[in-house]
C-alpha cells in the first residue's frame, strides 16, 4: 500500500523546493536596486549634494515604482484574505488604508512627541484603530449578506472620505504634508532603506496570510466562502470567523496605508478614495482570487502598465492620442481581456492548467 508520507529529506530543503520560484524572485528583488544601478550607471543611494542626498537617477526612480507595487500588493493581499479566502465582498477597503494613514500623520505632525516615537506610536495606533474599526464595522454589518454588506461598507468608507475632506484640522481637501520623519526611513533621503522596509513588509504579509489560510482557522474561512450554511451546520459560528477575517484584513490594509503616507510624505482624503478599494479588487481578480501570489502579480502588472502606458503617446497615422486621456478606457479593455483569457486570474488559471497536465498520482 502506498503511504502518504513526505519524501524523506530535511524539511528546509523540502520547503525550499516548494518555494523555489518565490525564493529566486525575492533574491532578485533584494538585488534589484543594485542591478538597475549597475545597468544604468546610477547610484542606488541617490546623488549626494552637501550633506543631503538628492533622489536622482534610474535606480532611485525604479525603487519608488517598486515601493508603490509593494504597497499595493499588501493592500491587495489583505483584500484577498477577505474576498478570496473568506468570500466576503467589501467595497470599503480604502477606509482602513486611509484611516491608518491619517492616524500616523496626526501623530507625526500634530503632537509634540519626538519623531522616532511618534512614528512607532502612530504606526501601532494606526493598525490597532484599523483592527477596532474592522471589528465595529463587522459587528454592525456582517449579519448582512453579499451585496447589502458591500453597499454598507462603501457607505462607511465614503462617510470617512467626506469627513476627512472637510475636517479643518487636517486642512480638509488639501491634506497636509509630513515634514518630520526619521532620517533613516525618509524616502527623500534614504529611499533604499524604505525600499527594503516595504519589501520586508510584503514578505511578512505573504507568509502570515499563507500561514493563516493553511491553519484550521483558514479552513473555516474557506468553508464559509464555499457555503456558509454548511459551515454553520457543522457548528461554526461563522459570524465570528468573518469578523476575524475582516479585522485582520483591515489591520493589514492599515499597514499598507502607513507605508503609502511615508512614501508620499503627504496625508489627504484621496487615501480614502474609492480607487484604493477598486484597485485591490481588480488586482486580486486579475492576479487570481484565492491564490497566495495572485494579488502580488496583479498589483505588479497593473501598476507597471500604469507607469509605462499612462505617459505614453499613441501615434495612429498622424493622429496622436495621449494615453493619459483614454487611460480609464484602456484599463477597462485590459481588465475585460484578462478576465476572458484568464477566467481564474493569471495565477489561478495557471495553477489549474498545471494541475490538468500533471494529475495527482
Amino acid at each position, binding site marked *: 500500500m502506498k503511504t*502518504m508520507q513526505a519524501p524523506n529529506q530535511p524539511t528546509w530543503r523540502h520547503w525550499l523546493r516548494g518555494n523555489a520560484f518565490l525564493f529566486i524572485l525575492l533574491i532578485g528583488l533584494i538585488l534589484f536596486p543594485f542591478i538597475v544601478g549597475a545597468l544604468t550607471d546610477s547610484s542606488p543611494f541617490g546623488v549626494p549634494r552637501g550633506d543631503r542626498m538628492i533622489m536622482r537617477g534610474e535606480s532611485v526612480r525604479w525603487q519608488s515604482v517598486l515601493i508603490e507595487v509593494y504597497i499595493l500588493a499588501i493592500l491587495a493581499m489583505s483584500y484577498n484574505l477577505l474576498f478570496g479566502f473568506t468570500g466576503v465582498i467589501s467595497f470599503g477597503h480604502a477606509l482602513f488604508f486611509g484611516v491608518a494613514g491619517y492616524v500616523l500623520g496626526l501623530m507625526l505632525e500634530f503632537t509634540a512627541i519626538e519623531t522616532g516615537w511618534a512614528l512607532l506610536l502612530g504606526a501601532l495606533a494606526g493598525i490597532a484603530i484599523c483592527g477596532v474599526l474592522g471589528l465595529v464595522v463587522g459587528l454592525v454589518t456582517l449579519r448582512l449578506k453579499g451585496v447589502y454588506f458591500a453597499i454598507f461598507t462603501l457607505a462607511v468608507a465614503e462617510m470617512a472620505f467626506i469627513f476627512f475632506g472637510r475636517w479643518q484640522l487636517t486642512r480638509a481637501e488639501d491634506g497636509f504634508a509630513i515634514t518630520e520623519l526619521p532620517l533613516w526611513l525618509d524616502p527623500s533621503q534614504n529611499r533604499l532603506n524604505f525600499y527594503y522596509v516595504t519589501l520586508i513588509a510584503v514578505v511578512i504579509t505573504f507568509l502570515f496570510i499563507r500561514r493563516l489560510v493553511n491553519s*484550521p482557522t483558514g*479552513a*473555516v474561512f*474557506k*468553508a464559509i*466562502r*464555499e*457555503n456558509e*450554511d*454548511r459551515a*454553520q*451546520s*457543522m*457548528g*461554526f*459560528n*461563522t459570524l465570528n470567523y468573518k469578523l476575524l477575517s475582516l479585522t485582520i484584513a483591515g489591520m493589514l490594509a492599515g499597514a499598507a496605508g502607513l507605508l503609502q503616507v511615508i512614501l508620499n510624505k503627504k496625508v489627504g482624503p484621496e487615501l480614502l478614495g474609492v480607487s484604493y478599494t477598486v484597485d485591490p479588487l481588480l488586482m486580486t481578480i486579475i492576479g487570481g482570487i484565492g491564490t497566495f501570489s495572485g494579488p502580488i502579480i496583479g498589483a505588479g502588472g497593473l501598476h507597471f502598465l500604469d507607469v509605462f502606458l499612462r505617459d505614453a503617446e499613441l501615434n495612429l497615422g498622424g493622429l496622436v492620442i495621449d494615453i493619459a486621456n483614454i487611460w480609464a478606457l484602456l484599463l477597462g479593455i485590459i481588465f475585460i481581456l484578462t478576465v476572458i483569457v484568464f477566467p481564474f486570474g493569471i495565477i489561478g488559471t495557471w495553477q489549474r492548467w498545471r494541475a490538468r497536465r500533471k494529475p*495527482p498520482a
Partner: protein
Amino acid sequence: MTPILEVRDIHTFIGQFHILEGVSVSVASGGITVLLGRNGAGKTTTLRSIMGLTPPTRGSIQFEGNPIQGKSTHAIAQMGIGYVPEHRAIFKGLTVRENLILAERKTGDYARKADFIFELFPDLKRLIELPGGNLSGGQQQMLAVARALVPDNRLLLIDEPSEGLAPVIIEQLIAAIQRLADQVSVLLVEQNFRVASKLAQSYVIIEEGHSRVNGAMNELVGDQSLIQRYLGVA
C-alpha cells in the same frame, strides 16, 4: 423510551410561502426514522427547520429534552446534531482530509474517529489527499456522511443519501448507515422506498406540509393502500 428528538407541530415560512403547516416528528433514541413523502412535501424543509437554517415560526423542537427552536444553527450543531444536506454537500475546494478535520468540534476528534470512519468507508482512506471536488458522486456522499461522524454527534439528519447514485454504491451506503446507527440515532429523508424500508424502523409521512401518518416500518411495508395513497406516483 424517551425520544432523542421531538418535533411538535412546527410551521415554517420560506419568504412568503407557508411551507410547513404543522409537522410533528419523533425520533427514537438509537434507531433510524425516515421521512417519506412526495417531492415538495416539505421533508428537506423539516430537516432545515430542525437545524435552524429555516427557523420555524411556531411549534417546538426538543433535542434530548432541551428546546432548540430559535437557537442559531451553529449552536444547534454544537449540541450534537450532525446535518448531511442533500446534493453531496461537501467542500469541493478542500481535500478529503481537510473536510474531515474541519468537522472536528474538539481537537483530536478526527484522529479518534478515523479508524471507525475508514472501516465504514474504506475508499476515503485512499482518496484522503484529493480535493473533494475530484471525488465521484458516491464518494462525495460517503465523505458527507463521514464528516458528520467526526464529532460526537448523537443525532444525524441525512437528506436523500441515495439520490443519483448507482445501485452498487447505494448498497454500500445502506450497509454503512446501518452500521453507524449502532452509535447514533438517525433521521433520514429518502425518496427511494426500497432503501428507506431496508434502513428505517419507523416512518413519518409528510404531505403538503403536514405530517399525516407515522408508525413502524414493518407495518407500512405490508400496507399497500397506504403506500399508494401517500407515496404512489399514479
